[in-house]
């Protein structure tokens, strides 16, 4: 393999449609997992974001407000 074609030759463009460039993903398997996705992701990301907002509210109520109002 010539060195100077490294970037190009084996590089599918993301613009290419799946009809042109395949990845290792099997369409049938993908269709099967898409029945569950994104339940796990929704729960995980939802829980993480909820914790974030909970932390924010607790900081507001337990640290910020007791330290005295400013304006």
């Amino acid at each position, binding site marked *: 393999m010539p060195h100077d074609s490294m970037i190009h030759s084996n590089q599918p463009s993301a613009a290419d449609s799946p009809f042109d460039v395949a990845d290792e993903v099997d369409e049938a398997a993908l269709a099967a997992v*898409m029945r569950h996705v994104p339940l796990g992701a929704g729960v995980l990301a939802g829980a993480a*974001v909820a914790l974030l907002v909970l932390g*924010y509210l607790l900081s507001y109520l337990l640290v910020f407000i007791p330290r005295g*109002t*400013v*304006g």
Partner: protein
Amino acid sequence: MSERQPEMHERRILGTELLWAFGVGVLIAATLSMIVFTALTMGINPPSNVERVDPKMLHLSGEFAEHNLGTSVAADGSVTARVIATQFMFVPRCIAVPQGRPVTLRFAAPDVIHGILITGTNVNTMVVPGFVAQVHTQFTRSGDLLMPCHEYCGLGHSEMWATVQVLPEGAFQPDREGRVSCAQR
């Protein structure tokens, strides 16, 4: 795979994303409501006193001349502390304030940008030359607090701090001119 299936999939995916985005919207609304609620009911704002003052003339006359600095109690009982932030010290270096009473802190800088915070409180403001920085607050606990300069103001920045002495009601005694200084310890 039929022609229409991907379209439907894509629509389902976008529907899910929209649902998530809706959840995000609710969270943003909740946090903003908190901010607006405290602003409306407790008057909480960031210090935003847009009051111009010439940094070059501060020392000549007016409230930020050397003799007028420090804490004073007006005839109506309101407490105002006036402080200069300059390279590399605060004037005065110790500020006496009463516990549990509204206090107005006013700062000005004759030279470069400074900033202050008072440890353990929400008192925090930039001191920008050209403007009077002002914080309205109440100190809830008595004791000595640290008031450092928290913005880079030059090579002596690290040694620039003052003490805030929060005095209980009985110990906060103005003299005949209404001035209060720190107790010597």
